[in-house]
């Protein structure tokens, strides 16, 4: 078990993603490109704002709990960070979509 895990870790370090080659970004021609830029900006703005609302609720509840139970602060903090990561990943999805719209531009 330990040796197979070690070999898997060594495989990660040795050959990360040789299979997938990156496609070069090509400039867009037509009217979809400017709309892609607009949509990317607005999508990121909405995602960041709503993500901030959700994370604010989570942090408020966690800080309140930590103030009531200082002994459990470490565990609450760990749970809060995991929850924040899960909330934040939704905004990160929007960021990835915005980057696809900006740099890859599959629809022209």
């Amino acid at each position, binding site marked *: *078990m330990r040796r197979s*895990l070690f070999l898997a870790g060594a*495989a990660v370090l040795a050959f*990360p993603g040789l299979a997938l080659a990156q496609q070069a970004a090509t400039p867009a021609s037509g009217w979809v490109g400017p709309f892609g830029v607009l949509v990317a900006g607005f999508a990121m703005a909405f995602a960041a704002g709503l993500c901030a609302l959700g994370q604010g609720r989570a942090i408020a509840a966690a800080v309140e709990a930590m103030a009531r139970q200082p002994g459990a602060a470490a565990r609450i903090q*760990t749970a809060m960070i*995991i929850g924040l990561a899960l909330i934040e*990943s939704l905004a*990160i999805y929007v960021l*990835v979509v915005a*980057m696809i719209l900006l740099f890859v531009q599959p629809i022209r």
Partner: protein
Amino acid sequence: MEAIEHPPIFTLPGIPDHVTYTWLVMIVLTVAAFAASRNVALVPRGVQNFMEVVLEQFLGMIDDVIGHEGRRFLPLIATLGLFILVGNLISLVPGLAGPTANLNTTAACALVVFFAYHVIGIRAQGFGNYLKHFMGPVPALAPLMIPIELISHLARPLSLSLRLFGNMTGGHILLAIIFFLMGLDGLIGWALSGSAPGAIVGGIGALVMIVFTVGFLFPLKILVSFLQAFIFVMLTMLYIAGAIEHAEHHSGHH
């Protein structure tokens, strides 16, 4: 991100940059491991002391999340954590590229985690018992629960890889835009050159951006580097803990 980011100073022809700098991270980690284990002493000093402290942090997290029987997964978890941490930090050095700012690297790490925790779960409780995880607490709900569980399990490597990649690349794009604004600021100063307003506007703008970058953005990116490595490792441990716990534990409350 070739559109806005400067290529790194050292590139190997025919090999993508993230692979080159993955090898750099490998060299760093191998040298650190060699230096730490060259003269193993009972009372640790120097590099060995440092690496023992780092690994004890990993062991503490494993004990918290998985329990004491999770200590045999330390090689997998600590390797992933140290690789991602050093990969995140190396991308902050000007002139070097970060391996974790590329989707290929993060997807490789996430796929290893995906297959590893399924294999660990099947080995821990057998194939049939492991499949009961996917059926939910009540057998009558199994047709509803199986698609939900399948989708949630398939979304795990997607979210792991995209989270790390998006955080790192987003930070790099932010830095690139700030540096681009520095160039714009220089352009304004050049347009107004020969006059006092040019020097004032350019000087103040450059000062604000340098202070903002060095005082806020770089500490933020160092924090994000540690945080993303921590979260990757923590989620890996949560998945392993969910895979090796018994299915009865789910339905014990009903």
